């Protein structure tokens, strides 16, 4: 079964390095439960091997290849992370293991699940915040 295929060491190393660097860049932390992080990094690495892209493993896609071909939206770091600093995969979180939700629209599922979780490092990350702000203005 493809879901259980072990990713290559090359992709694992690449994703581990990427995740660590992106945490520093975004001012986020690892989840305190290491199993959470390890699972996501494995999923990302497997998607790199299978699809050539670090497609988020915390979504269901009817057709993964079609998703990759259509959009970069769910390539890690995904659009939600770059715009709102929200990672529903719990890869980039607060030191307490909560996903940052304060920038999300109030009707976003992240706000409904986790409430308002404040960003401990507001000077970092959100490199695509302008896209979120332009969306808010048009709503």
């Amino acid at each position, binding site marked *: *079964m*493809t*879901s*259980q295929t072990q990713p290559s060491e090359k992709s694992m190393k690449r994703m581990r390095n990427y995740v660590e660097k992106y945490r520093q860049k975004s001012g986020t932390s690892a*989840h305190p*439960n290491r*199993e*959470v*992080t*390890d*699972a*996501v990094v*494995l*999923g990302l690495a*497997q998607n790199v091997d299978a699809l050539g892209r670090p497609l988020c*493993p*915390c*979504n*269901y896609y*009817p057709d993964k290849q079609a998703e990759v071909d259509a959009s970069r939206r769910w390539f890690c770091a995904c659009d939600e992370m770059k715009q709102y600093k929200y990672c*529903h*995969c*719990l*890869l980039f979180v607060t030191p307490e293991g909560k996903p940052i939700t304060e920038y999300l629209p109030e009707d976003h*599922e*992240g706000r409904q*699940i*986790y409430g308002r979780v404040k960003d401990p490092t507001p000077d970092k990350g959100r490199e695509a915040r302008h896209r979120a702000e332009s969306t808010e203005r048009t709503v």
Partner: protein
Amino acid sequence: MSKPQEFTDANFQNEVLESDLPVLVDFWAAWCGPCRAVGPTIDELAEQYEGTVKVGKLNIDENPQSPSRFGISSIPAVLLFKDGKVVETLVGVQPKERYEVALHQVAA
């Protein structure tokens, strides 16, 4: 000790939609971190609600028809079924009490 059942595309109709008991289905994937975080809660609920609610898991990578049918996108997604219909959807890592409240409502 009761463990969560394994639901599949093949048994979904019989085990979930035609079940006499309400059913909790945890749509998950092996390499989804938050699914790992929810797993122990689902295990506890299976034991706690044995005989009143059927609790189980469905691996979305191995069973793609069911998540498509029920509009799953972000996982983990926990759906509660009663009389073959979805009565509650809980996405993400929720506190155990949130699942319990929903289960009390469907089991009532």
